[in-house]
C-alpha cells in the first residue's frame, strides 16, 4: 500500500529525513517511533504531498506522490500533529467543511459527520465552538476530521500529545478500532509504550535515519538472546571493571550509561557469579544490580543512546 524508498528531505543544510525506506502493507498499523526532531512529521508531510521529496521515491496506493499528488490526496486521511481545526467554528461546522473539501455534500455529508461526531463521542457538543473543548475533546475531533471521506489510508502524527492518560487510552482505542476495520495506518509517536501496545510493525527513526524496522518480535530478536546486566559501582572501579570484562567470552559489550555499568551478555545468569567474584575480590559491595530481558527500549538505547522517555 505504501512504499518509501530512500526518501530524503532537506531544510537548507539540515537533512531532516536522510534516506529512509519502509513499506506498509494494506491493513497494517505501522508505527514510526522516534524522539522529537527525528523527522517523523517531515516524513508524514512528504507522504501526504505537502512537501516534495528531495530524493527517493514514495508510492501510495500505486500513485507516486511527486507525479500524481491529487490521486494520493484522495486516498489518504490526515490527522496532523497540531489541532488543525477552526477553533472559532462549531465541531460540526468543522467536519462539514473538511468533508466538502473531499467533494462530499448534502445528506451524505450530514450523515457522515453525525457518524463521526458519534465516534468521537462529541455529538452532544456538536454545536459548540472548538475553542470551548478540552484537550482530549479537541484531539478526538482532530482525529475524526481526518476520517470524513472514509480514507483507505490514515496518517496520525502524534495524536496523543498533550493529553491525560484517560483521554489518551480513548484515542488509542479509536485507532485500534479503525485498524481492525481494515484501515492502513501510519502512526507516529515518541511514546514507546504506544508503539509497543498499538502497532503491528514499527520503524524506529532517529536523526532522519531508520535505525530499526520490523515486527515488534523481530525487533527484539535483533537484540537476540541478550540480557542486560546493569550495576552500580563506585566511579574509580569503572575503568578496571570494563577492562577486565571486555575480554570475557560471555560479554557482548560493556559501557557506562548514566553512571551505571551496562553489560550486554548472551546469558545473564551465567555471568553473574563471575561479577560477584570480581566484586568480593576487591572488597566492593554490590550496591545495585539488575538483569533485564531486552525490550524495545533497550533496543532503542542500544541504537541511539537516547532514552525515549526524555
Amino acid at each position, binding site marked *: 500500500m505504501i512504499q518509501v524508498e530512500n526518501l530524503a528531505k532537506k*531544510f537548507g543544510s539540515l537533512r531532516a529525513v536522510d534516506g529512509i525506506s519502509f513499506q506498509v502493507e494494506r491493513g497494517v498499523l505501522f508505527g514510526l517511533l522516534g524522539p522529537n526532531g527525528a523527522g517523523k512529521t517531515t516524513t508524514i*508531510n512528504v507522504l*501526504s*504531498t*505537502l*512537501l*516534495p521529496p528531495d530524493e527517493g521515491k514514495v508510492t501510495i496506493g500505486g500513485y507516486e506522490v511527486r507525479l500524481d499528488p*491529487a490521486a494520493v*490526496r*484522495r486516498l*489518504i486521511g*490526515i490527522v*496532523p*500533529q*497540531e*489541532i*488543525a*481545526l*477552526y*477553533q*472559532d*467554528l462549531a465541531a460540526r*461546522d468543522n467536519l462539514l*467543511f*473538511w468533508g*466538502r*473539501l*473531499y*467533494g462530499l455534500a448534502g445528506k451524505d455529508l450530514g450523515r457522515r459527520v453525525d457518524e463521526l461526531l458519534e465516534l468521537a463521542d462529541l455529538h452532544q457538543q456538536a454545536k459548540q*465552538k472548538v475553542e470551548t473543548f478540552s484537550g482530549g475533546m479537541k484531539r478526538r475531533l482532530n482525529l475524526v*476530521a481526518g476520517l470524513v471521506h472514509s480514507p483507505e489510508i490514515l496518517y496520525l502524527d502524534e495524536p496523543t500529545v498533550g493529553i491525560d492518560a484517560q483521554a489518551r487510552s480513548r484515542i488509542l482505542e479509536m485507532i485500534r478500532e479503525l485498524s481492525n476495520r481494515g484501515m492502513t495506518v501510519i502512526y507516529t509517536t515518541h511514546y514507546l509504550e504506544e508503539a509497543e501496545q498499538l502497532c503491528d510493525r514499527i520503524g524506529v527513526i532517529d536523526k532522519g535515519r531508520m535505525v530499526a524496522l520490523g515486527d515488534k518480535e523481530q525487533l527484539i530478536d535483533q537484540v537476540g538472546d541478550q540480557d542486560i546486566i546493569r550495576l552500580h559501582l563506585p566511579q574509580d572501579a569503572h575503568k578496571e571493571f570494563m577492562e577486565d570484562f571486555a575480554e570475557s567470552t560471555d560479554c557482548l559489550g560493556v559501557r557506562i550509561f548514566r553512571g551505571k555499568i551496562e553489560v550486554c551478555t548472551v546469558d545473564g545468569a551465567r555471568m553473574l557469579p563471575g561479577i560477584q567474584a570480581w566484586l568480593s575480590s576487591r572488597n566492593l559491595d554490590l550496591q545495585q544490580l539488575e538483569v533485564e530481558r531486552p525490550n524495545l527500549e533497550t533496543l532503542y538505547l542500544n541504537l541511539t543512546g537516547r532514552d525515549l522517555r526524555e
Partner: protein
Amino acid sequence: MVIFSVAGKDLLRFLGDRRALVVSLALPLVLTFIMGLSFGGGLFGKSGISAIKIALVAEGIPELLRDRFTEGLEESGFFSVSWVDSNAADFLVRNGEVSAAVVLPDDFLRQALSFEEIPILIWKDPGSSLKAGIVEEVLSRGLREYQAGEAAYLGLWPEDAAAAGDSSAVDLVEKYFEGAFSTLWQSWREVENDSSWAEFQERTARIMDRQVALVEALGQPGIELEVQDKVSDQDVSQSEDINLFNYFLPTFAVFFLMFGVAGATGDFHRERKMGTLQRQLMSPLRALEFVLGKWLSASLQGSLQLMVLFLGGAILFQVNLGPDPWSLPLAIVLTCTAATGFFLLLTLLCRDEKMADNLKTIVVLISAMLGGNMVPVDSLPPWISAVGQFFFNYWANLSFSHILVSNRNIFEEPQPLLILFGATIGLLGASLIVFILRQRRGGLL
C-alpha cells in the same frame, strides 16, 4: 464549487466574531457620525464639494460692506454669493437655482450704525439641507466687524465728520494734536486757562462713547434671523444642496475597509500557524482554489462591511446611494476585490503574521494618506495626488465620490472601475504566483 466552501467557512467565522463585527461595522458609522457633526464640513468644503449658491438681497448697502459679506460667506467654503434684487432672489429660490436667498432690510445700514438688532430674512426651499445657523453666523460676524470698524473709525478720525459741519470741534482737536511733542505737552499744561477746554472735554467724551459702542457692538447679537420657506418647483435632489455625509461616509468606509481586509487576508498566516492551511493542502483542494477561496471570502467580508456602512449611512444620515441600484454595489464589489488582492499579495510576501501585520498597518496608513482617505486628494500637493493614483483606494474614493456626491451613474465615467477591475486581476494573479512559489519552497509550513 469547493471555492465557495472555503469562502463560506471563513464568512461563517467572520460573522461569529463579534469583536470583528463591531470594529468593521459599527465603528465607521460612529466615526462618520461624530465627524459629520463636529466638522460641519468646513475642512472639506473647498476641495471635495461645490459651494452652496446663495443670493443676497440688499438695497442701499455700500460696496465696501457688500464685499465684506461676500468675502465672509465665501471664505467659509460653503457659499458662492450673488447680489440680486428681491424679485430675482424669489425667482432663483423657486427654481432651485440657489439654495437660499438672504434678504437684508432696506435701512440695514442705519440699523447697523445705530447698533440695533437687524431683522434678516432667509428664503429657502424647505427640502434644502442648508443650515440657517451657518448663514447667521457668517452674517453676524461680518456685521459686527463692520460696526466695530465704523465706531472705531468715527472715534479716531473725527475730522472726517467735518463734512457734517462740526468744524469747530475738528479745529480744536487738530489744535491739540498738532506740532511736536513739546508743543503738545505745553498745550496740556495750559489747558486750564484755555476757554475751549469745555469743548475739548465734550469731544473727548464723545470719542469715549464711540469706544464703548465699539465694545458693545462686538459683544452683541447683531442680527435676528427669520427663515421663510419658499417651496421650489424643482426636485430637491436636483438642487445644489449637499449632504456632507455623502463625502465623509465613503472616506471612512474605505479606510476601515482597508483595515478589515488587511485583517481578513492575515488569516493566511493564522491558518498556517493553526495547521489548517497545511491540512487543506493535503486534501484534494488545489492551490488555485485555496487562493481564490481566501480572496473571495475577504472580498465578501469587505463588501458586506461596505454595504452595511452605506445602508446605515442612508438610514442614519440620509446618505445618497446613487442614481441607480447598480452603480454603488458595483463600485463596492470592485473596491473590495482590488483591496483583497492588494492585501493578500502583501500577506503572502511576508514571512509570518507579525511581519505581515506591521507591513500592512504601515501600508494602510500610507495609502489612506496618499489616496485621499485622510485628507481630500484635491488639497494635497499635485505630486502626492500623482503618487496616490497608484493606490487602489484613490480609485475607490473617486468612484464613490462620483456616485454619492455627484450622484452620477458610474458607467458615465467608468475609468475608476476599470482600473479597480484591472488591479483585481493583476493582484490576484500575482498572489497566486507567490503562493505557488512559496509552496514549492516549503514556505507554507
